[in-house]
């Protein structure tokens, strides 16, 4: 399993690996938002946490179809399915690799991007914590969606349609936690719900995604 994780991370950093894609998209959203909002710093800092969450979520979505489609096209997925590696483990590792190469960099740069959106200083810690708690759910749900659409060529649109509704709870609690932190309110409840969402998806979705993959490989 470690070998698969390391390979996926290595592939992401090689040419055409798509490592910078999500990050670049996130940067574009953050750079353009102040232009769209206009010269109202007060308004900008009020919507900063929501915009950062939305940007991170869409950036995550952008690279989901790579999780299984590339391995399916070059035949690796068939070979991995015959390897002594449980399909559930394969899905979990793939989701983890997606989180490490896509979501984790977004979490790391989020304070900097918060600065660009004039996020109030007390909002930084809750924002980072909310992204850390919530992005595993985004990667896991995304891996499930990618498993559902793996046999379909150009399945990106279908994947987005399937995955976006499932992302809504994570977005609600994540943005709520970041907003409460920004306003100096107590954010324990959304933090717990967010952590629960991530734990729940990590516990259940590998099994669902593995079942779906087995059907799609037939």
């Amino acid at each position, binding site marked *: 399993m*470690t*070998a*698969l994780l390391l*390979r996926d991370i*290595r*592939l992401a950093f*090689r*040419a*055409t*690996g798509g490592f910078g894609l999500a990050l670049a998209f996130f940067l574009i959203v953050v750079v353009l938002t102040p232009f769209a909002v206009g010269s109202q710093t007060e308004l900008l800092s009020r919507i900063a946490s929501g915009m950062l969450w939305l940007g991170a979520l869409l950036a995550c979505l952008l690279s989901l179809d790579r999780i299984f489609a590339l391995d399916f*096209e*070059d*035949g*690796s997925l*068939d*070979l*991995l*399915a*015959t*390897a*002594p*590696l449980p399909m559930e483990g394969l899905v979990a590792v793939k989701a983890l690799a997606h989180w490490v190469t896509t979501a984790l960099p977004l979490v790391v740069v989020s304070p900097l991007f918060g600065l660009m959106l004039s996020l109030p200083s007390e909002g930084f810690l809750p924002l980072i914590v909310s992204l850390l708690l919530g992005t595993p759910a985004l990667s896991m749900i995304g891996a499930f969606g990618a498993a559902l659409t793996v046999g379909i060529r150009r399945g990106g649109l279908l994947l987005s349609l399937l995955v976006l509704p499932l992302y809504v709870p994570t977005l609600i609690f994540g943005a709520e936690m970041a907003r409460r932190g920004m306003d100096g309110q107590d954010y324990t409840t959304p933090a717990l719900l967010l952590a629960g969402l991530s734990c729940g998806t990590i516990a259940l979705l590998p099994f669902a995604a593995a079942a779906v993959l087995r059907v799609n*490989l*037939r």
Partner: protein
Amino acid sequence: MMNLSAHELSVARGGLPLLQSVNFRLDAGRALMLRGPNGIGKTTLLRVLAGLQPPLSGRLETTSDSVAYVGHADGLKSTLTVSENLAFWASIFGQTGIQAALERFNLTSLQNRPAGMLSAGQKRRLGLARLMVTGRKVWLLDEPTVSLDATNVVLFTDVLRDHLDAGGSAIIASHLDIAIDGIEKLDLTTLRVDLETVDFLGEALL
């Protein structure tokens, strides 16, 4: 010792039955050739044997985790080098040491080249070298000699013969004759499902 056997196996592709009453027994050290025209179901049968899809009916006897499958695609990552690709598969199958496989398939001089820069024949050789690092007993080979030149077909036959001598076995779907003594042949033409006589529509519509 028996490595794999099939009893009254029938297989389907996309809900459409292709082959029925497939019976064979593959002992250690033996190889079986699957023969038949395009579209008869050689690949589907191999995928069933590899456990990638369930049979329609019948029974398959095999020890778990004993097969290594080579399909039409080689499963190579074009941005990884030859040795990185091979080392990845070796560690997935819990094996170490890729040098023997590289040398056997004349890939040592290419080992630091990205797999994307290889020719079709070189890619195939790397795909076949993967078999040697799986440590599996039963090789399921779907058109293994495609894009190999005559020299490399001989090279591959030698590797296959050594594998059989070491107690392994192989099932090969190929249109080319493979020069191995005592290779059994299974002609799939006679096992084709006559679609006129089978009511497959009922299940296909489910």
